[in-house]
């Protein structure tokens, strides 16, 4: 029996696997991206179960064991400038660092997409109004803007998160606007309008499905930027306060030890690097997997 006959005798409708099914399949074939995803999941698990994994208290230190090098018995990754166990602090630090890296992005994603899709779909004066306002924020470098905002709001974790969220809204809006403008010009939107669909239906059925993917990929890439910004804010004393463990803050307090214990001082930086590169690789993998033609 030839394949054609098989298809003709088949009574049921041959259904192509859904779009997301294909995305997952293509993503799972990308070993580097899968590796990065496993690293991220590992970091999240580490943060959730920090209390069970960490060998020591991350806050309690002792002046007797200050700045121990890596490999000291009892302190596998050494001890910091206040004699606290580095391994435990790095494990607990994943909690705050991931919180600060992950939470601003979804909020900015929702607000930015809303603004950008509105601007892109409605066009005209609404577009100019939204996009020119966004341009004002673009005049400032993102780090400076985050510092200024969180300085104005006052130091603290919540305010740092708010300021990072605000910093991310303009770039996401801009990406959303450009993708939406592009999709809106395609003939299938005209075809939908010609069948009498309302703007709401067109956005829901035809715009969102084609626009959210690229915006999502862009936003995923922002997670690493968010972590770095958060670390920067903590470094400047605008985010997390001591003695809470957070990688950016740890990098800050350990900088005085850079000449005596450079490897220990570099550890929090290495964690930030690992996390942000993992998120970037996952974002890149997603971008590839979402391309239907690949």
């Amino acid at each position, binding site marked *: 029996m030839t394949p054609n006959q098989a298809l003709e005798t088949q009574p049921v409708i041959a259904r192509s696997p859904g779009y997301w099914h294909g995305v997952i399949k293509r993503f799972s074939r990308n070993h580097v991206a899968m590796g990065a995803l496993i690293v991220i999941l590992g970091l999240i698990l580490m943060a959730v179960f920090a209390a069970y994994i960490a060998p020591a208290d991350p806050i309690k230190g002792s002046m007797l064991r200050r700045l121990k090098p890596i490999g000291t018995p009892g302190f596998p990754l050494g001890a910091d400038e206040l004699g606290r166990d580095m391994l435990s602090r790095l494990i607990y630090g994943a909690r705050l660092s991931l919180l600060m890296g992950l939470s601003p992005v979804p909020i900015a994603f929702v607000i930015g997409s809303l603004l950008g899709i509105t601007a892109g779909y409605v066009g005209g004066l609404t577009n100019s109004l939204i996009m020119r306002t966004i341009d004002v924020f673009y005049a400032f470098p993102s780090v400076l803007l985050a510092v200024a905002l969180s300085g104005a709001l006052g130091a603290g974790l919540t305010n740092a998160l708010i300021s990072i969220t605000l910093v991310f809204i303009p770039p996401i809006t801009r990406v959303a606007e450009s993708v939406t403008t592009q999709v809106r010009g395609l003939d*299938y939107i005209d075809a939908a309008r010609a069948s*009498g669909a309302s703007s709401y239906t067109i956005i829901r059925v035809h715009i969102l499905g084609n626009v959210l993917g690229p915006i999502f990929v862009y936003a995923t890439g922002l997670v690493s930027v968010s972590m770095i910004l958060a670390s920067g804010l903590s470094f400047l004393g605008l985010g997390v306060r001591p003695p809470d463990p957070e990688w950016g803050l740890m990098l800050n307090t350990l900088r005085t030890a850079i000449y005596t214990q450079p490897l220990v001082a570099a550890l929090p930086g290495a964690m930030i690097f690992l996390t942000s590169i993992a998120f970037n690789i996952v974002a890149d993998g997603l971008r590839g997997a979402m391309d*239907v033609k690949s």
Partner: protein
Amino acid sequence: MTHFEPISPLSVLDPRDRGGPVQPLLTIQGLKKYFHSAGNSWFGAQSVVRAVDDISFVIHKGETLGVVGESGCGKSTTARLLMHLIKPDQGEIIFDGEKVGIDIPLTEFRRQVQMVFQDSYASLNPRLTIEDTISFGPRIHGMYESKARLISHDLLARVGLDPSRFAGRYPHELSGGQRQRINIARALAFNPRLLILDEAVSALDKSVEAQVLNLLQDLKEDFGLTYLFISHDLNVVRYMVDRVMVMYLGSIAEIGDGETVFSTPVHPYTKALLASMPSMDPDQPTREAPLSGDPPNPINPPSGCRFHPRCIMAEAACSQKRPALETTRHKKSMAACLLQNRDTPIPFPPIKVSGQ
């Protein structure tokens, strides 16, 4: 088992028909669309593109009206204006005796007039399956999903695609010809009376094009359709149409019975256009291009007759007075040329045109 009852051909009266067979299905009066370039709206003078400049014509019930012309002559803009995808600056569109937007609501008009676009890929949502794309229209007008799905399967079968193989597919899995069949099926989902085909077969290769053209001919009979057939391919137009409209720079140069216009064209532009068709006879090759250069910029169209800078017949009067459409001598067409009633006949191709 059919779930989709097409309204019978014109011989039997369509229940939606109001004015009888003599009343035109679509009457366009004084349609105008100027595009304002927004590029330098703050500084300097705004430039205005006269895409469609005061055109009037009718489409009779059951006919195929062809629209031909060079790129940028306003063919597609006219189609989009008719679909109300862009707002006209001026002009009336009357559908079967009812003014669109006043006597007949736009939503009802859009059920009866549908459009097939040139780019078969861009006109399908890549994220929707074929059956979702076809049933989208009926669904938004309140049809149950199961019924809309059955209709989409029927329509797929009618455009020559096996529903069991294609209904669940995505556009990127299909060929250009298959995609265009799906676009036709989607347009038919409303059981329209008028189908606007905007270069619907231009992007297909020749063998597939012929299949789709034959499909369109069959569907026209089965569904009792009227076609507005826009194309730049004169051979295809000649094969398809009952009447033809020749457009040049946003206005109508000549309109009339298809065979007559193709065999005895009156307007010099129509003649040049016909002469530009590659010769199929090896003994009489097309020796030189009858029309040289590009059409003038519609931002700053020539005065008087739009065609006079490229016309070999042009006289002084042509650059001053804009000709109106007048019935030609053989009474079977109308042409917009000041010289059409002269005794000396306008020479047939090849027309020589001096350089721009």
